[in-house]
């Protein structure tokens, strides 16, 4: 089970003066159950790329295979694919259009053919899981604050119970606690339901903490594809393409320059903390030995 992108190219406004090649020869294999992060400067093609995964945008050339089936085959059920690959848009406004939040979240499962009752049950569970307070369920999506809209949009996709969950900058606009809650929820879905998760993010700290595999986009091409530790080792090159390493990675490098043997590949707060504590306790032990 996998998604394969084979030599995918995408051009916006083809054959006009405004032609932009947003994706250039993308070859990727996304395996079942992976937790993948995608980073890249704004305009690097992240949103365009992920909109290919559920067939929303059709490649200008190249092929996409979902579980071995060519999604561009004439008899392929694209509508079904949209339910299997759940896409949370970058702007929640783009997917909230019903009169109440609850109706909105019901829409996906209804559209997939579930009965009204089952759809409501799924909506209920999804809204609970994103922790949108019940007070807001029967309000118009337009009355919600930015972060509340974001939660409603994520719930709408979760309610479809997709096999693959694709989130385009899902934590933008969430308060810090909300950021943790949503990412912890996604991690839990990945862990407990073996859901494949693809997370587009501008937070280096978040991808370092959560994902197993990190894809770096640059001007429509894949620049790096590896574990966060492998990718963030290229922090100088990342800076050149508008990105950075997590704060703590820089800290570790600076400490090493100043003679403290910190772990140069630490990318998370926890790794950094352990490494600094270890450096301090070793030094402490050494000085005790010397005193003896």
């Amino acid at each position: 089970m996998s998604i394969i992108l084979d030599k995918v190219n995408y051009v916006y406004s083809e054959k006009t003066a405004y032609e932009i090649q947003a994706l250039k020869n993308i070859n990727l294999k996304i395996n079942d159950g992976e937790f993948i992060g995608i980073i890249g400067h704004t305009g690097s093609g992240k949103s365009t790329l992920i909109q290919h995964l559920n067939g929303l945008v059709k490649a200008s050339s190249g092929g996409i295979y979902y579980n071995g089936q060519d999604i561009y085959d004439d008899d392929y059920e694209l509508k079904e694919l949209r339910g299997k690959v759940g896409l949370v848009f970058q702007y929640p406004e783009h997917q909230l259009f019903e009169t109440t939040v609850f109706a909105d979240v019901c829409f996906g499962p209804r559209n997939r053919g579930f009965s009204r009752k089952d759809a409501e049950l799924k909506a209920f569970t999804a809204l609970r899981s994103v922790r949108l307070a019940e007070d807001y369920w029967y309000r118009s999506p337009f009355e919600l604050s930015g972060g509340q809209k974001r939660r409603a949009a994520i719930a709408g996709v979760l309610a479809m119970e997709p096999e693959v969950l694709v989130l385009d900058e899902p934590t933008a606009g969430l308060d810090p606690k909300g950021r943790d809650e949503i990412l912890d929820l996604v991690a839990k879905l990945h862990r407990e339901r073996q859901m494949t998760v693809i997370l587009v993010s501008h937070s280096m700290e978040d991808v370092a903490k959560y994902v197993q595999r990190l894809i770096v986009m640059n001007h429509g091409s894949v620049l790096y594809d590896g574990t966060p530790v492998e990718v963030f080792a290229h922090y100088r090159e990342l800076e050149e393409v508008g990105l950075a390493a997590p704060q703590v990675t820089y800290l570790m490098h600076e400490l090493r320059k100043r003679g403290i043997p910190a772990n140069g590949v630490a990318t998370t707060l926890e790794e950094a903390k352990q490494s600094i504590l270890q450096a301090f306790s070793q030094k402490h032990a050494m000085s005790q030995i010397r005193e003896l």
Partner: protein
Amino acid sequence: MNFIEARKLVHEYIRRDEDDNVESILTALDEVNLDVKEGEFVAVLGHNGSGKSTLAKHLNVLLKPSGGTLWVNGKDTEDADNLWDIRQSTGMVFQNPDNQIIASVVEEDVAFGPENIGVPTTEIWKRVEKGLKSVGMIQYREHSPNRLSGGQKQRVAIAGVMAMEPKCIVLDEPTAMLDPNGRREVLEAVGQLNKEKGVTVILITHYMEEVIRADRVYVMDNGKVVMQGTPRAIFSQVDTLKSYRLDVPQITLLAYELRNAGVPVPEGILTRQELVEALCRLY
């Protein structure tokens, strides 16, 4: 008088049924007091739904008080005669760039504001160029805004407000959609406007790192102002902030956890540089 003064400012969102009977009342601002001096850089933090955007909309008179008073640039926002003056003195950058881009070419969009207030043409183009450069978008000046990605659009929107050269600029999560570089560019541009031109800045954000350069921070919780102080004073209160669904910068959190684990780094560390120095002294 301060550039902005709010006294017991209240905002209620009232929902009515078909017969105009009140169905529900939501108090989004609950007796907020706010003082911002001219030239100050003030950050506002708070959980989702705490009232930050509602407050921002009052500063630009998109909303009017349900109770209490708000003065901007010495003018009462409730008085309709002051609307034009306040809108001209206080520019606004919203959360979602899609709702604020109007023209079909980037440079025209940036020029729209100054054109509207009668800035002479040659001066307009100077401002457009400066605005676009300050957000790193000058090479897109002849592009169509709706063909830009989210982050690029947001930078154009900020350039548009900067081209108005207002006394005060209110930014409601301006960097939420930007990549690290874009975020840095925008914050540097905003910081520069503040430092070099004395523009008053109100920055609403969920990124704790962005608050470090502010003179003062307000923390909102359920429509109320619950904390205010310098970034260092605010970020020294890790547990209190967490109880308001907030956080501290990652470096501050690391320092805090190291201290809890027995490495006596001082409280209120904000930057990488400070933590490196503190650790080197202790090592």
